[in-house]
């Protein structure tokens, strides 16, 4: 309850001057780590006003679906840094199984409930040997969510492209487009 009340003023501020930018269906650079090629327009959070470890886009609204791009996560850094919590940290010698565990614990710590990860398998991240897995969890508001993750550790830094959406309707809506984005990734 306390958390919701504290978040409301923040969301009001966010709504009044939300730094949303249009992401054109054209090559997009993610940090200095990789380039992706979306084929539809997305709405991106402009992180120059609210700095974040990841870049975040949505097609239908940030409560419904989105893509999170983490890039160049270094040894001993976490995937989240908000809420004054101690989030688990990435280690440069992690294997795919351990990155999957890191993602599960990070989401759990961020407030997601009943986080499950399945189907961990090898996959290419551009030219690098990476891996993919699927996730399900519930948000604190009870919404059931799905997430798919493509990741790789390249030169000791973690790169992640992760698409999520509500189990009902919004996840399926852009899966094909996200598959194209994941297939289009080019390491810089």
């Amino acid at each position, binding site marked *: *309850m*306390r958390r919701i*009340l*504290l978040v409301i003023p923040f969301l009001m501020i966010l709504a009044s001057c939300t730094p949303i930018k249009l992401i054109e269906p054209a090559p997009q650079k993610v940090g200095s780590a990789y380039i992706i090629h979306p084929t539809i327009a997305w709405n991106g959070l402009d992180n120059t006003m609210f700095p974040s470890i990841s870049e975040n886009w949505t097609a239908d609204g940030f409560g419904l679906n989105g893509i999170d791009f983490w890039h160049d996560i270094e040894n001993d850094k976490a995937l989240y840094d908000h809420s*004054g*919590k*101690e*989030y*688990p940290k990435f*280690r440069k*010698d992690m*294997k*795919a*199984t*351990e990155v999957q*565990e890191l993602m*599960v*614990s990070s989401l*759990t*710590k961020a407030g997601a*409930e*009943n*986080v499950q990860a*399945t*189907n*961990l*398998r*090898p996959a290419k991240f551009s030219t690098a040997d990476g*891996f993919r897995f699927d996730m399900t969890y*519930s948000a604190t508001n*009870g919404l*059931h969510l799905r997430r798919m993750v493509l990741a790789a550790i390249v030169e000791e830094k973690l790169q992640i492209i992760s698409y999520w959406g509500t189990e009902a309707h919004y996840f399926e809506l852009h899966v094909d487009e996200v598959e194209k984005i994941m297939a289009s990734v080019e390491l810089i």
Partner: protein
Amino acid sequence: MAGIKGLTALLIIGLGLSACASTGDVKPIAPGERPEISTDEAGLWMQVERAEEKLRSSGKVVTDPELNRYVNGIVCRLEPDYCQDIRVYVVNAAGFNASMSPNGAMHVWTGLLLRLENEAQLANVLSHELAHYRQRHSVQRWRDIRDKTDGLVFFQLTTAMVGVAPLGTLMALATLDSIYGFSRDQEQEADDLGFERMTAAGYDPREAPRIWGFLVAEKEASDAPKGSLFTATHPQSEDRQKRLDQQVQELGDLTNDLILGAENYTAITRRFRSEWLEDEVKVADFGRSIVLVDRLLERDPGAGDLLFAKGELLRRRGKEADLDAAIEVYQSAMISSDDYPPEVHRSIALVHWTQGQNVEALAAFEDYLNKNPNADDHLIIRDYISQLK
């Protein structure tokens, strides 16, 4: 200086307004009673009924009939007159928690059940929550906050006018934090009444302070940032343990026929333990969880699920000595238990690989697939094996 004087005056006015707010007398709720439809209490019930409805359909509630029958049975033993008014929901969530809504919906987290050792301890937690219901603490608290918040709006406006808005914000934070739970006095009253009720129902009262001892140990070992500026509004676990210890002393010599219910409790909850441990590991508060698992191991040494959980916590924390310690614990699980999970082999392999012991890693990954050829992650494990060969 003048600014400080003005600020002091405003503080006095603001605090005075808060203090003027009356919460009124709230009598304990009678068995079967529901609030009159025209009252603020009925409005509060309506809100929590909506939340209860949402919880029921959320998939977070453990529906196992035996577990639910067991917990409900203890509630009815503790408060036979209110038995029909209470609905207990065992909620899948790690962490030590139980809560009570004003309309009789009680939430018991699986993380709490994982931590308790016997029925007497569970009876103490349940009787504490039942006391919140009987004494209508939620509605008292709600009226108190509503009145406080009205005072707060005035305080923020006045402080903002003289250019000290940040202080207004700080006061807002303090008030919001106090909304988080029952007040210190209410918690103390629920502790006292809960203790009385569990003792009257025949449970061993010496188990009540022990629960708080568990919490103190976990809190001290936790990796989470310590304390909050506003935690003074709630009694600390240490104080609650001392107070309950004192109450046990005051009871004098105790008879030998008091209910502990350790065997019964274990029989009902044991089959869920692996799942609850998995949830605990996911939270990644390694210090807290290792203290918990070590305590559970004292009572059930050699249990495969506990040893696996401890190994997972050590491996994931990954400090210098942790990896060797994790290997030892995994090996203990394999030696002392026939029902250790096949994932033990995968974890051993990951540790060896991290330590550069590729031959051992390869062998352990192969053991994992031999034990579990259709593992959900068999594709990545086969990839690991080909990298190691």
